[in-house]
């Protein structure tokens, strides 16, 4: 019995080793954080349009339209947003998914130039220069994209830019799920 005690450290280490092995093997991404908002209605907000851009502003009422909507948080100063932009355009134009934007902590003239340069796929854009609404959505960074269903509930949250390989594997299935 006393001898078993000497094996205890080894046994505990074996347990930890199995957990490490699993963690490496499963391709688990520790920076992936689920949103506390999943399956909850989008937070209440009303944002004005970007000055000098003739896309209308965005409010929480604009999300519960019966149609699945992608809410993309972007900023002109954010480099990954530029990388992600063509993918958003493709989702909107080819897949026909409704796309709205929240322009996060940005200067209106910079945002206008950004949209002019890269085309504007958004049907509505709310300007959030102070980042207040971003706080309500629990942003951890820009860009982030939320899938909101027809009743205005958040169904999926994507942290960081959408990579082209993630369109098929993550975004489209989430949209499909939200349509049900």
């Amino acid at each position, binding site marked *: 019995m*006393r001898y078993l005690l*000497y094996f205890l450290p*080894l046994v505990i280490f074996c347990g930890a*080793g199995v957990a*490490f092995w699993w963690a*490496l093997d499963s391709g688990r991404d*520790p920076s992936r954080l689920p949103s506390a908002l999943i399956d909850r209605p989008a937070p209440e907000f009303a944002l004005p349009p970007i000055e000098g851009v003739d896309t209308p502003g965005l409010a929480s009422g604009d999300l519960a339209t019966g149609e699945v909507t992608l809410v993309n948080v972007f900023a002109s100063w954010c480099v990954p947003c530029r990388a992600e932009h063509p993918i958003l355009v493709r989702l909107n134009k080819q897949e026909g998914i409704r796309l709205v934007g929240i322009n996060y902590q940005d200067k209106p003239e910079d945002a206008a130039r950004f949209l002019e340069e890269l085309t504007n796929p958004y049907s509505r854009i709310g300007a959030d220069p102070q980042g207040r609404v971003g706080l309500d959505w629990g942003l951890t960074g820009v860009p982030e994209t939320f899938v909101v269903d027809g009743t205005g509930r958040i169904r999926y949250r994507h942290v960081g830019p959408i990579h082209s390989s993630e369109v098929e594997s993550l975004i489209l299935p989430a949209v499909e799920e939200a349509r049900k």
Partner: protein
Amino acid sequence: MIPELGHFALILALLVATAQTVVPLWGAHRGNAAWMAVAGPSAVAHLLLVTVSFAALTWAYVVSDFTVVNVVANSHSAKPMLYKITGVWGNHEGSMLLWILILAVFGGAVALFGGNLPPSLKARVIAIQGLIGIGFISFTIFTSNPFERVFPPPLDGQDLNPLLQDPGLAFHPPMLYLGYVGFSVAFAFAIAALLEGKVDAAWARWVRPWTLAAWVFLTGGIALGSWWAYYELGWGGWWFWDPVENVSFMPWLLGTALLHSAIVVEKRDALKVWTILLAILTFSLSLLGTFIVRSGLLTSVHAFASDPERGLYILMMLIFVIGGSLTLFAIRAPTLKPGGLFAPISREGGLVMNNLLLATATATILIGTLYPLILDSLGGGLVTVGPPFFNLTFVPLMLPLVFVMGFGPMMAWKRTDMAGVLGRLKVAAAVALVVGLATLYLQNGGPLLAALALGLAAWLFVAAFTDLAAKTKLFRAPLADSWSRARGLPRSQYGTALAHGGLAIAIAGMVGSTAWKVESISVMQPGETKDVAGYSFTFEGVERLQGPNYLSETASFTVRDGDGAFVAVMTPEKRLYPVANMPTTEAAIHTRWLADLYAVIGDKEERGEGWTVRIYYEPLVPFLWLGSLVMMLGGIVSLSDRRLRVGAPRQAKTRVPAGPAVQPAE
């Protein structure tokens, strides 16, 4: 050419390390003196080859050799020379090479300074060091080669992460690694002792200086890292319970326990099995730290780019080293003979208490750090464990520890007259009470815990020096008599008092900055004045400046005290490093010794001239760094004790007649 030389030297070092492991281990097993003697020279050759390899990489950085991928990815021709050199270890591959270099330095040091070790113990210790070397060198050569070339070479490099271009961080990794890797010596001694089947006072006396040296470096490394976080991240905090911080803190806690339990082995021949286990676990936690930082298993602010292949390699190494050593422990430890007996109230009892509390604290932090991973692996979903958990569990464990530390050094071995000890601590108790009550009164309804902790810090500080005063009969004997007693006192006594006193100072810093920090965030217009904690800050405006490899927006604040007298001009900056396209904040810190004034600027207002400004008043924070320095000083003073340099005491030989291998030193 030179990078290839470095690469070849590293490959040769791998071969030498293999010989260093296999030949002496076999020799020690067979009792072949010639084979055992291979250990020393091969450890020195190992050190020389690794030094050549490291020098080659450093050379590539110094001359900005952009045909080497590693230099391209982490350096830039416009970077100041200091950061060209520190860039060598500011990345995964280079820092592995630094790890290997330090390991080789310790291996070489055992070979060169271990003259008084019994040959078989020396051979085994060096062989184990070689074995660890094999693991890390092969890892570097096969998965993280820093000497890889690129063709065609780019015109310029991609620059080092600007957060790392900082004098505090320049020396943080070498210090930290000296600590981590230093524990490998204690580990090697533990494994060698298990192989020899013998742990005695002489063994403990050999292990202690290495552990102490590692502890001093690790203390310095952690303090530097914390200092860096304090002024570079611009959040006004100095400890965030970030996984990477935790993995450096755990070996420190356990190493501290090892330091103390080794004393019991040395003086009383007790706690042998436990000390061996601590030596194994301390180094295992150092390895675990390396694994976690480099495999991307846990999120952290300063993880290296992760790569599953590397993670798997390190995991295999962990399983081999930790699993192997714990298996050896499970088989051989029961055969070690238990040593001296002691009453619960005794110096040994106090040190056991120290060990229990430190080990529990380590376990708590380990659980907190790995909990998200373990819960996820059991299908429990993703969680993060934040500072509230650590504060709630760690602080209550530390308070009794600090209390025991007050009288621990005064207790006698075997059995203690507790009333006598407490009688000597009347002054300390009175000071603690006064400090605690005064704090409670002054803070006027603030956190009770802060008053308690500050009172305990005062208790520990006074008690640490009461011990010295008692031993030198200060104020009770003529001054000349006390002076001659003070000179005759072993340096390790001073080391203990300094290290304990340093911890008391550091605790005061931790309490002050946690409990009474004043924070002000506002938008300030140029010319506007704001009062924070009795100081007035006048915002003079922002200038655009050009640094060597960055652009800067430098604000300036004139600070005056309550009477309107000028205190300082503070210039917090926002920098943009165009090559890495990365902004950093440079906080401005003006220390008033009893407190720091700390200013950071944020963004400019969209319309208008105002800037977001954060101003902190950080009471007692300088004590944190001062305390860490005093702790290190305590370690160094203790290390210089003559008794640690001479071998085992003669009594050990007479007490353990069955120990023919114990050679008298000198």
